[in-house]
């Protein structure tokens, strides 16, 4: 790009090149689109329809360091996490009475939009996960056992454990915040962390970006401002899903300098 006159609108060849790149995704041959490597290790989780999440009963592989929330020593994964892992063949899901649950059933479950997620939101999640990002629901802690970890002794861990929620009802109250989310409302949906091999649920740090799923029209200035206030200084991105294509936009406040 360097050294060329980009002001010159007649540099059609660059645009053409971009177009060809865009259309690269169209493959005539069937099945050639998949570059996914399917997993050989499979964890097992049991869907809990009451909480709208899956409880992981058998973990395999490294992916659980960046997937699922920990409550009362148990690992729960949201519907988008469950679906994603099922799609890549890393998770075997069973129902409450230990029947195997198919991907189809879970796609239907997602379509009902009862578990705090919807297809578009799932597409955003998958898009970022496939690029290696760490994605969690906005403002839902990865773990309640956190922060006070620096003392590091067994006893202090024991104390923080005891402060955690224990009954399934407590767990429900967290889930409720997810399920009652009105998906048509303009609100923050995901916290996104850059790919990071040292990520820990007990000390995730601040997310790199906070995402807002947007439909219909581009946001007004008032909407952007309201969401920015909720983000508390973290960079806000708007994600838009149109016919399976995920785009992210920022509307960042700037201040042009006063020139000499």
């Amino acid at each position, binding site marked *: 790009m360097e050294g060329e006159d*980009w002001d010159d609108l007649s540099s059609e060849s660059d645009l053409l090149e971009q177009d060809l790149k865009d259309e690269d995704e169209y493959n005539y041959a069937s099945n050639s689109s998949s570059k996914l490597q399917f997993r050989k290790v499979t964890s097992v989780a049991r869907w809990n329809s009451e909480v709208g999440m899956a409880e992981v009963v058998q973990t395999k592989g490294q992916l659980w360091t960046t997937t699922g929330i920990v409550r009362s020593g148990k690992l729960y994964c949201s519907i988008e996490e469950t679906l994603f892992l099922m799609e890549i063949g890393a998770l075997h899901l069973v129902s409450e009475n230990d029947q195997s649950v198919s991907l189809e059933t879970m796609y239907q479950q997602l379509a009902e939009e009862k578990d705090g997620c919807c297809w578009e939101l799932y597409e955003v999640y998958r898009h970022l996960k496939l690029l290696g*990002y760490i994605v969690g629901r906005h403002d839902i802690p990865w773990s309640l056992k956190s922060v006070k970890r620096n003392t590091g002794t067994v006893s202090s861990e024991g104390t923080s454990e005891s402060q955690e929620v224990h009954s399934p009802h407590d767990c429900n109250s967290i889930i409720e915040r997810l399920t009652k989310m009105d998906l048509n409302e303009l609100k923050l949906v995901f916290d996104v962390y850059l790919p990071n091999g040292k990520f820990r649920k007990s000390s995730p740090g601040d997310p790199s970006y906070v995402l807002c799923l947007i439909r219909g029209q581009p946001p007004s200035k008032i909407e952007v401002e309201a969401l920015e206030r909720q983000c508390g200084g973290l960079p806000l991105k708007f994600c838009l899903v149109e016919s399976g294509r995920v785009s992210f936009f*920022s*509307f960042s406040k700037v201040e042009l300098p006063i020139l*000499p």
Partner: protein
Amino acid sequence: MGLRWKGKGAEVRAQADPMSKIVSQLKLSLIESNAHGVLSGCSVLLAVEAVQSDLLNRACFGRPVVTAEKDKQWFQLSMEEAFYLCYILKCLSIHGGDDHRKTDEELWEHMTDKKSTFPEFFKAYAHLRMKNWVVRSGSQYGVDYVAYRHHPSLVHSEYAVLVSTQEHSGENGRLRVWSDVHCMVRLCGSVAKALLVLYISKCGHGDASPSCVTLYSVEERVVGRWSPKDCREDHSIAVNGH
């Protein structure tokens, strides 16, 4: 995207000759010569001599009108440019076709009548000009203005500017649909400019008189596309984090 000087030495030349200095030279010169323009439709025509012609060119106000007249050069100013010289810099008087000098209020009425969004557009124009940015029409790029750090012969424009009048039912009507956002971001990217949106709020002040404009507020935002594919590593985090 961003700042791109045109060739070697351009940046040095710009630094040696700040835009604020050029504009104040123009201002003094126009005041001294008691310059006046003629309001014609949506333009103001102004005849100047060689020195002022050079200053207008260097400060990037108006465009020259080619005529056979040898002793003076005609310039055509846009409404924003003319009103800026007249009302903000107070170095140009503007006459009607009847050769009577128009008051600021008369001009304001004429211009808002010709263009209902003139108050917001003028605010946007003046906002950037007062920060010493060079502002030109953006119609070549499908935007309202383009903003340059210095004279366009020295530097490429950095910003494609859209004026958002969203607050009052949005007469400007840009960026209302995603296809327009996609289109603008794509186009700006291909010509290496950032898309700057100036949100003009009248803050409850109407547009009855030009004095209202000083009470309007301006918010600057850059609209861009984030590509998660290309941003997986953040250097600031790599430096700070462990």
